[in-house]
C-alpha cells in the first residue's frame, strides 16, 4: 500500500515536471537563432499572441566609418536611421498557422532598408527556414538559420 502511494507520488511529480518544461508547439520558435552568414543572432520572443525577433548580437557591431555602434542608417524613414542595429526588431507580427509554420509576418533587411513578407518554417528543433518574399511566396529568397 505504502509502495503504491510512493509510486503514485513519484508519477505525479514526474508528470508535473514534464508539463512545466514542455514547450508548446507554437512556442518552439522562441529562442536565439543565427543567420546563415554568421553575422547576426536574433532572439525570437512572443508578445501577446504574435512572435517577434530582434537582433541581440552582431559579429561586427561597430560602424567602420563612424567607429560607433551600427545604426539602421538605410531605413527609408529618416527618423529611424539613428536607431541602433543591436536591439532592432527585424521579425514582426508572426502568427502560428500550424505544422511548424509561422506566417503573416514581415522581415526587415537592414542592409537594404527594405521590409518583406516572410514565412518561417521549422525544419527541426534547431533549424529554421526563413523565406522572405514580396507578394507571393513563390518568388523570394530562403535562408537557413540555426539555434544557438
Amino acid at each position: 500500500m505504502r509502495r503504491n502511494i510512493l509510486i503514485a507520488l513519484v508519477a505525479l511529480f514526474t508528470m508535473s515536471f514534464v508539463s512545466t518544461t514542455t514547450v508548446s508547439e507554437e512556442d518552439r520558435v522562441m529562442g536565439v537563432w543565427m543567420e546563415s552568414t554568421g553575422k547576426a543572432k536574433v532572439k525570437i520572443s512572443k508578445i501577446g499572441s504574435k512572435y517577434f525577433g530582434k537582433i541581440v548580437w552582431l559579429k561586427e557591431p561597430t560602424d567602420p566609418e563612424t567607429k560607433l555602434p551600427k545604426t539602421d542608417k538605410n531605413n527609408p524613414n529618416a527618423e529611424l536611421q539613428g536607431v541602433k542595429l543591436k536591439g532592432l526588431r527585424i521579425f514582426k507580427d508572426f502568427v502560428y498557422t500550424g505544422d511548424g509554420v509561422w506566417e503573416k509576418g514581415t522581415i526587415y533587411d537592414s542592409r537594404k532598408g527594405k521590409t518583406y513578407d516572410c514565412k518561417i518554417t521549422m525544419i527541426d528543433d534547431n533549424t529554421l527556414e526563413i523565406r522572405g518574399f514580396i507578394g507571393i511566396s513563390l518568388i523570394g529568397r530562403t535562408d537557413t538559420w540555426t539555434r544557438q
Partner: protein
Amino acid sequence: MKINFVKGLLLAATLGVGLSSCSVATKTVEAEVATQTLLFEDIYEGGNEKSITLNVAEMLGDVDITKIEGATIQSILVSKKDSLGLSEINEAKVQLLGESEDLTMVTVGVSGEIKEGSQEIELSILDEVEIAKYLKEENVTLVLDLTYIKDQEVPQNYEVGIKFDLEMNEQK
C-alpha cells in the same frame, strides 16, 4: 443661357449647403494615460523588452472611444526614479501592438542620446503615425524596448507616461 447660369449657381449653392451639413465636426482633445510601471528582469547586454496590455476604455477614462476619428501620440516620457536613473541604457523605444492580426506592431517613439545622469527622457515622436485603429480595439499592448549597456543582475523598474491627441467626432 442666363437661366442655365442661374440654375447652375443654385445647384452649386444647394450642393455646398448639403455637403457642409453632412461634414463631421471634430475637435482635438488631449488624453493622458496613467503612468505605467514596467519591471525589467533577467537583463542582458543589448535589447531588452517589456510589454503591458491595457484595456483601452480604462486607459482613456472619460473619452468616448466610439467617437475617435483620429489619434496621434503627443508625448512619451520614460523615467527611472532612482540614483542610477537611465545611466544603464543607451536607447529606448516604444511600440504599440493591436489585438487583431491586421494591426501590426508600430514604432511610435524613439530616444535620441540619453544624457549621463538623467532620470527621464522624452522620446521623439514619429511623424504621421496614425493610431486611431489601435484605440478602437478592446485592448492595446504597449512595448518598451531598452538597450542596456551591460548585463544587470538586479531587476529594474521603469515608468512610461503617454499623452495622446485625439480627434473626436462631435456629431450627436
